[in-house]
């Protein structure tokens, strides 16, 4: 059961931002509603005004250009999963979209909503880090583009300002020859841990020339493991594919994990290492075109 509200359906971002400014704290952006309506039903948020951005022109498009794709904020996970452009340029993203929550949430939930809500258990917020994602924000005072790193600040907190609207996320395709994997682990409805790994092998395909690693859900916000990435440069691909990556990392140890229903902080940090190693194993095997058995219990391997 929901409490009454007024619903606005602006057709431009400027109108939407004007509504946000006009109604201030009383207004909330609304797209798929998968997270918002849940909180509203529980009475935890009680907006008087919903600003539905699904009718804003251009927000529902996926566009590929110049080695990047731009996913509009109101594109649903279901659309991402099926998008030819996503499959062509960032197939891992399409694969992960297929595993977000369940089929119904994927049909209603949107990419922009997912990022803007900043649920600490978001898959996309972690995954997109290895695509050097940048966020487009538009407000009455202009537009800006910021890296995803700088957008998600903490649980449910982002850099989005009052009348700003997340209009799109841009993902850079990986260099040719790169291979990646996303692993998420957990017992519960939302993942306990998500790890994304991308490896770019050298010309001979033997050693890693570039690595990208992102880890999410266990800390306050998703994180790139940049020192570990640097350390992995030059690592033999076969070593990683054999599951022998040395992932002991101060960056992981420093993650501010809390003890909650998903598990104790020490367990989560240990799992962060385990799944970083596993993600590297799968990515390396793919880079080397090996077929491996990459099934792990309570784990989605994309």
């Amino acid at each position, binding site marked *: *059961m929901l*409490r*009454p509200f007024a619903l606005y359906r602006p057709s431009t971002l400027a109108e939407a931002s004007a509504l946000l400014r006009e109604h201030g704290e009383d207004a909330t952006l609304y797209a798929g509603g998968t997270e918002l309506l849940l909180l509203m039903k529980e*009475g935890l948020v009680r907006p008087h005004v919903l600003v539905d951005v699904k009718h804003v022109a251009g927000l529902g498009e996926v566009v590929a250009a110049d080695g990047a794709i731009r996913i509009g904020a109101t594109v649903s996970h279901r659309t991402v999963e099926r998008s030819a452009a996503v499959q062509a340029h960032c197939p891992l993203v399409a694969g992960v979209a297929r595993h977000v929550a369940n089929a119904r949430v994927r049909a209603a939930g949107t990419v922009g909503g997912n990022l803007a809500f900043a649920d600490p258990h978001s898959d996309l917020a972690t995954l997109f880090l290895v695509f050097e994602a940048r966020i487009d924000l538009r407000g009455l005072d202009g537009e800006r583009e910021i890296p995803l790193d700088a957008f998600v600040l903490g649980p449910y907190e982002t850099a989005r300002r009052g009348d700003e609207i997340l209009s799109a996320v841009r993902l850079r395709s990986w260099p040719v020859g790169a291979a990646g994997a996303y692993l998420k*682990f957990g*017992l*519960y*409805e*939302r993942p306990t841990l998500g790890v994304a790994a991308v490896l770019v092998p050298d010309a001979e395909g033997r050693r890693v020339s570039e690595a990208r690693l992102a880890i999410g859900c266990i800390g306050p916000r998703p994180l790139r493991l940049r020192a570990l990435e640097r350390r992995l440069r030059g690592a033999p691909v076969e070593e990683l594919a054999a599951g022998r990556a040395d992932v002991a990392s101060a960056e992981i140890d420093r993650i501010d994990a809390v003890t909650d*229903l998903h*598990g*104790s902080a020490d*367990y989560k940090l*240990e*799992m962060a290492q*385990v799944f970083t190693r596993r993600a590297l194993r799968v990515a390396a095997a793919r880079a080397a075109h090996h077929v491996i058995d990459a099934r*792990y*219990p*309570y*784990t989605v391997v994309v």
Partner: protein
Amino acid sequence: MTPGRAFRVVGQSVRRLDAIDKVTGRARYVTDLTQPGMLHAALLRSPHAHARIRTIDVAAARAVRGVHAVVTSADLTWCDPYFGPAFRDRPILAIGVARYEGEPVAAVVAEDEGAAAEALDRIIVDYEPLSAVTTLEEALAPGASLVHTDAPLAGHFADLSTLKPVRGTNVCHQFHLERGRGAAAFAEADLALEDCYYFPRVQHYSMEPHAALAAWDEESGLTVWASTQNPYSVRVELAKMFRVPLSRIRVIVPLLGGGFGGKTYAKLEPITSALARLAGRPVRLAISAQDAFRTVRRCDARVRVRLGLRRDGRLLAAECVADFDVGAYADIGPRIVQKGTYTATGPYRIPNVVLHSRAVYTNTTPGGAFRGFGVPQLAWPFESLLDDAARRLDLDPVELRRQNLLAHGEEFEPGDTPVDGKFEESLSRAAEAIRWTQAAASDRGRGVAMMMKASIGPTVSEAIVRLHADGSATVLASTVEMGQGARTVLAQIAAEVLAISIERVSVATPDTAMTPYDQTTSSSRSTTLMGRAVQEAAEDIREQLLRIAGEIIDAPPAELVLDDGHVVARGGRVAYPALLTERFGMGGGELIGRGIVAPGRSRAPLGGSTPFWEMAVGAAEVHVDEETGAVVVDDYVSVADIGRRINPQQCEGQDEGAVMQGLGHTLLEEMVYDGGQLLNANLVDYRVPRAEDLPSRIRCLFVENGDGAGPFGAKGAGEGSLIPVSPAVGNALARLTGVRFRELPLTPERVWRALRARPKP
């Protein structure tokens, strides 16, 4: 029924009576029902685990448009506001004290759910928090704060007439039973071992949360449509509370969206009836799934088991000391405690036994009946310890069990029903199916476990079968259809006896004004007890048909048989309608058959003998992800000694569901409290099994020797197969890893921690 005769309907996987309604969306549950003028109710629940209620200000709530009544315990002085099947300790709405987080404190009745929610927001309750006990340890500690301070009134169970609360403590009941020489026998054991185990709080999570719709009128009194497994127990409660004769209370039970024990005894019916009375209009209360977590749960338990064995593996002595946490209100907890403990030692011959258990109040959701009724909590430690004993004696766990099994016909307990099945056959089937004697792959472990459970006694089931003028029949029985397929089974039984097709049999909706008395739909008892009552009622009709036919066909009744809607003899064949017309001298009259099954009291320790023993074996093959602690069940075999399957497909469905539910509390499920606050009362944070959790292979097998006390040699099933799941998985894991797990659920983190603490080889 002559042995060897082929059955026509019994033993066939006939289509469920309700299958088509259910797949086409036509099936109706309480929340689908409305009544003219119906209002909606909502409950305000205590956020505190334990608090004195100083004041409740309802003025603002009453002023909300569309609100008809705002009710607190102060408005319920016109009735007896307490209920409960063991102790009448649970108030309709908290009186002065809230005893658990989620206890209903006030109620609103409104035109719609929106107005009700708005009014709830405006009720102001002034609480004085009290210290709360939310674990067994806290509740049993010296000087613990008391959940209840007044002596509660006893409820209505014969075997609980000797309820033994310990005054000044949180212990609301104790059970003690000894056999043989008791603990003294341990002195003679070659091996004695002892361990302590913990079983978690888990939630039924019936897909349908509880609901009730109540209406009062001058002519028939109180009518309640309820999601209950036992309309007659609810009727008794309501009669006592509202001081109305049984004849003026009508409890109607449409289909249930799952029960699993969570819908036994009164839950929402008292409050809904009271609100309908106060509002003067029909009222429906449908709680959310989140609030079902605050209505009832399985009792968690801490169990210490001691075993004494001979060197050759013979069991000599056993001692079980169990504490069950029954939550803030006893519900049926005291009975769960004694029933669960009664068969703590499983299907084994043990000459010397000491059983001692306690029901303990805590400031948590009331613990109630849940599939297995106390037995899972005890089979988990006992069957685990049995495997430890086998290891210590260097014996095969299957062989150790086999040599101690009770034989068919052997006495389990003086005065109770002798063993009515073949445990040995079940164990062999399970061992064979899991390839017990062949080596498992190096990364796989196998385990077995068994269980024996008593059903309910004394007990009563009554049925009426009506044979209509056209030769079709209606079964009147108060067995509740909650998914288990009982009504289909009852129709099969009637069709078999009356020799008519199942399409010509209907089974009436349980309605205490129409369908006769049945104690309860629980305890795996319906096929056996109500099945027999229906069988007797149908046989009663058959006798009447034969008598009438004997006058027409001119043959002695012994030579007459029923066949395809006719009475047949060498001399001829007469259809039922013709016989009825003959009997009544006109068309329209019908025959009424009665069946009453009522095994009464006995010398058995629980006051009545079990009508049958439910018995099951589980065998699991597992592997573990050592790095994460995740346990995977690759293969699971369940064997149930069921006597005879009336409907094989339904039996299989029951046991597959039971195994998956068992895997739930074994691997996934636990209600987590933090200082009295329930943290995961929703499906985002409480994890029930999903399709993905299906073992790669699952087989549910049956031993059918036609030796059950039910119709055609059937006996009960449905609970049994859930019970061995935890110990079978635990034993498999112990054999694989060398680590013995004592606490459920076996979540990855718990397993990981234990594996990490394992001494390095």
